[in-house]
């Protein structure tokens, strides 16, 4: 294809996106578009799978049967999200094995928030309320993103995430209305998860490398700083409502802006965790790689069995 031809294809491609048309797997697309989507969608899938670990940590210790069932269902939803996000990524020509390999070798990233430990039951509430809350703010715009399979997957993901968020808030509400010990547990969880949740919305706009291109492809509709402000403005009144204190002495309503002003985020901590040196990075990867390696003989057996069954079928056909 000549350079002119590619240019004209690219022009038509950008025009389609501008018209809000969906790009489908068999459509022509610029290589950069494909790569960016594989990167973002697989990161998203990895985050779902790694995200199962901190919450999975409390399944055996959930305080009541009702909570245990809800937590199991939630973590199972995350596995389901991982499954259809990997499938959606496969439509761009990247196999699940390849993507796993990138995760296991540290080449691919996942949401840094999951590199923090879940120390008490209240962390299940804080994760649902804050982490899923921040995730929804990130993800709702993706329901209208330009790549069809991703947009469709996100519609389902967002519905379930919003259920998880309410469930998390309800755990916190119950603790906040409970005994002194329960209130302390809830406040402690908020103290530990608040700042990492703000970091989840990404580096500040002046440090974010992908924003401009992502905006054009509708992988992003608002900047990181706008999303972070939206999250804070939405969450502070919820904390007030249940009588918990946001651990930020600089937090203050700004009448003029119609938004909350907030304190300085510790970006050194953010980059430390992103670069692999958070409290749980090594453990999370060990758990993922360990499960994958321990499962190898199982997957081999399933393949061998399927081949044998296929051979038997063919023989019968003859």
């Amino acid at each position, binding site marked *: 294809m000549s350079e002119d031809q590619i240019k004209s294809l690219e022009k038509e491609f950008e025009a389609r996106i501008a018209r809000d048309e969906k790009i489908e797997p068999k459509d022509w697309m610029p290589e950069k578009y494909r790569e960016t989507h594989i990167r973002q969608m697989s990161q998203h899938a990895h985050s779902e*799978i790694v995200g*199962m670990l901190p919450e999975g940590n409390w399944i055996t210790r959930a305080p009541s049967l009702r909570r245990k069932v809800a937590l199991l269902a939630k973590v*199972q939803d995350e596995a389901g999200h991982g*499954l259809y996000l990997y499938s959606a990524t496969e439509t761009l020509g990247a196999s699940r094995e390849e993507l796993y390999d990138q995760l296991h070798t540290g080449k691919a990233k996942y949401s840094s928030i999951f590199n923090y430990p879940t120390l008490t039951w209240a962390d299940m509430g804080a994760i649902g309320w804050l982490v899923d809350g921040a995730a929804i703010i990130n993800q709702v715009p993706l329901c209208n993103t330009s790549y069809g399979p991703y947009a469709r997957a996100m519609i389902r993901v967002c519905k379930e995430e919003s259920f998880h968020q309410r469930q998390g808030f309800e755990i916190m509400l119950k603790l906040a209305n*409970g005994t002194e010990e329960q209130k302390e547990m809830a406040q402690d969880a908020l103290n530990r998860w608040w700042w990492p949740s703000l970091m989840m919305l990404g580096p500040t706009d002046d440090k974010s490398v992908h924003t401009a291109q992502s905006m054009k492809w509708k992988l992003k509709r608002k900047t990181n700083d706008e999303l972070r402000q939206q999250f804070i403005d939405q969450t502070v009144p919820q904390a007030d409502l249940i009588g918990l204190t946001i651990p930020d002495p600089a937090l203050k309503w700004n009448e003029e802006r119609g938004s909350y002003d907030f304190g300085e985020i510790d970006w050194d901590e953010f980059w430390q965790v992103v670069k692999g040196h958070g409290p749980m990075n090594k453990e999370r990867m060990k758990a993922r790689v360990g499960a994958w390696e321990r499962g190898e003989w199982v997957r*081999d057996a399933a393949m061998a069995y399927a081949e044998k069954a296929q051979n038997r079928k063919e023989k019968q056909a003859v």
Partner: protein
Amino acid sequence: MKNQYLYNYILGIADNSLILGQRMGELCGHGPSLETDIACTNISLDLFGQVRSYFQYASKIAGDGRTEDDIAMLRKEREYKNVLLAEQPNTNFAYTIGRQFLFDVYHLAFLKELQKSTDLTLAAIANKCVKEVSYHERFSSDWVKRLGDGTEQSRQKMQEAIDDLWTYTDELFHLTESDKEMVSQGIGVDATLLKDAYYNSVKELLEEATLHIPDSKYFQKGGKKGIHTEHLGYLLSDLQYMQRTYPNMEW
């Protein structure tokens, strides 16, 4: 308690689902593939759903203010009446599948009979559970076949798991005093009548999976009387942790 036999009977059934559900829940996020991970979590979820139905009913029968959570999480080791099979650990995926399969075949046959119980609540619970457990049984049977007739390595592992777990199968068919009383009232299932069909279908499937049928004549028992293997205590430490550390609170 007026209905002590019925209460004991329900706990005997529910404890199997409780303990096995807890074991399957341990695997969440650590399965050999995403699909098996989801399936194991799903089985755990079904089992805990069943536990809630049983314990809510038991709580009504006890009528002394104990809730489903008190019954599930605040008994002592010797008061849990699950079969020993259910509490065996997830040594590897073959043990997980083997334990599930050996239990599912029994569980499905048991529930089909429990549907005919003259106790309408139990019959209704069984009616709901039978659909879920039919799926469990299909899942675990399929995996026994895959692992048995997969690779040489998987065959060995599956065989080892079946050989080790076989010793816990006979207990499934023992009747406690409460079981006998409930059978005589038409409420309970006479598990002894399920035994031949159980071993026939298990053996048939193991053969299809190219596995040997263990020929041991020695079996372990005790779970139904609260005499467990050493594994149960650790499982209960996790299960009961929150209720023990923070007593009398709502969650």
